[in-house]
């Protein structure tokens, strides 16, 4: 089923989100995955490599995932508990960058926009231009080839700063901080859901019927899908399955569709 997915690194970050979205653990090989009515949650482990591997496998198993929000704690020169959303994700090691396409302001969460710098190990550096984390670049590197940059975002809550080192962070404090990200996640989920998808259900059903009844090579299937969609657009309805099936084989069907496409044009 098509659903968005929240990605956290650690169980301590996941707990309040699992409760809030009423998620249940799903037994999946090599993944810590939770599922619910409207959203999934993947717990990808600590560090960008683990995050990339986990997201890769997850998107392989759930290719219909509609969007991804990386949520977690992070360090920055900001007050503890500040919720930020990434306008840029930069990998410190490679200097590779990603720019999530931000939702319209009026649909955007009320969170400060910051550049997230993904580092390989926890650090005590808190430059004012960065928010420091350890997973975002791994998540973006795995997610962005499959989902476009309007559909992958990162939301962090500040857990440590110059005055409050990460070494002193109490585990009890993390769920309390993570709770603050929920309005931001909800708003982002809403904004991303408004990205319209094109309804191709009618042609997909016809295509499935044709290829399950008659033999089409891979290349013929590819061309068939394209021609059915184009003809459906031009005729405002899909061609009849019965009349196509009556043509008995792939070659005849293609010849028929070619002739039809040749003869139709839009009317304005």
């Amino acid at each position, binding site marked *: 089923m098509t659903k968005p997915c929240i990605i956290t690194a650690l169980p301590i970050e996941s707990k309040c989100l699992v409760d809030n979205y009423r998620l249940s653990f799903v037994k999946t090989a090599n993944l810590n995955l939770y599922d619910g009515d409207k959203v999934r949650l993947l717990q990808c482990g600590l560090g960008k490599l683990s995050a990339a591997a986990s997201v890769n496998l997850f998107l392989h198993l759930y290719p219909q995932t509609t969007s991804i929000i990386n949520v977690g704690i992070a360090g920055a020169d900001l007050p503890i508990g500040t919720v930020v959303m990434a306008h840029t994700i930069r990998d410190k090691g490679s200097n590779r960058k*990603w*720019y999530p*396409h931000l939702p319209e302001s009026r649909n955007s969460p009320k969170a400060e926009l910051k550049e997230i710098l993904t580092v390989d190990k926890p650090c005590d550096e808190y430059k004012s231009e960065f928010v420091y984390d350890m997973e975002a670049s791994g998540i973006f590197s795995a997610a962005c080839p499959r989902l476009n940059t309007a559909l992958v975002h990162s939301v962090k809550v500040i857990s440590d700063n110059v005055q409050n080192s990460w070494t002193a962070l109490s585990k009890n404090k993390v769920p309390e901080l993570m709770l603050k990200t929920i309005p931001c996640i909800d708003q982002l989920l809403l904004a991303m859901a408004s990205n319209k998808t*094109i309804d191709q259900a009618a042609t997909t059903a016809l295509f499935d019927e044709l290829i399950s009844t008659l033999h089409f090579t891979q290349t013929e299937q590819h061309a068939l899908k394209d021609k059915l*969609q184009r003809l459906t657009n031009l005729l405002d309805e899909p061609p009849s399955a019965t009349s196509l099936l009556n043509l008995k084989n792939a070659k005849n069907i293609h010849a028929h569709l070619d002739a039809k496409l040749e003869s139709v*044009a*839009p009317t*304005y």
Partner: protein
Amino acid sequence: MDTIYVENAIAHHARVKTILTRFPKARVIAIERYTDVFNAPSQNFRTQKANPALILAYKHGNKVLPTPPDYHIGGAHNYYFSHMLNCIYDCRYCFLQGMYRSANYVVFVNYEDFFTDIAEQMQQHGEQESWFFSGYDCDSLALEPVTEFIAACLDQFEKLPCANLEIRTKSTQIRQLLSRQAIPNCVIAYSLSPEPIVAAEEHKTASLEKRITALKALQDHGWKVGLRFDPILKATNAQALYADMFDAVFEQLETSKIHSISLGPFRLPTQFYKKMIRLYPESKLLSTNLTASNNMLSYDPETENSLLKFCETRILKTVKPDQYFPCVSVS
């Protein structure tokens, strides 16, 4: 415009400051090079088109380039330049959708460097006239209230009598043109299509009627105007559509004073088309049968020729042959 990326190198440029003051609520994000954002992988043109960001950048390298061979209106030396990449309009046939990964708008703020390059190109041809086309990778006037590029450009062309400027547009933002004196070496060229095609395929653009009204106002004000019937689209009712459009246009303009009319077929590089149909799988226009030749897709030669022939005949009934510049030969 609620997100504006600004290259660090131009953060203090006066023009950047002026543009930013127009969008006080925008989220301003500092970047190193515009290409980092604009050419980044995994962008979706269609999704971004709903909410494009503005990128303010500095144009390095060549700013003025020779036009493709068919792109001219009778001049011998033809160049184009783009102070902006992408367009606020959303024409389903627009090649920019296939050419760029991003639908964000890029505005290059170093206008003076464009003007220097234009003057240098012009000087290469001595006393001979050269033509400079604006609006190749964007619509020249659509974002003028924000960029004020054309205003600055006209100030320059006023001083370059051997250089001619074509401002290609579908925009009716002409207040600024009407508030200054027309200059003889500039043509304001409108792309025109029949109203039902405007409504169906040229999203967010001004209606045909509004474009004609703008043309008429510009003509009355002394500006040279050009008409660009490009691309001519295939339709079951094509002849009726185009006949109505020509009637409407020629009825309202002073035809003997039209500087130039060009006529162009619907053509797309194959690679651009492939990307466009993936972005808009439901598009009727992109669903019509197209024929491939030399990495370009177009209607089959017979259909294309008959569409162009019909239009050409109607055009030449009204204007003189020396006002007419077909982009391809019509047989």
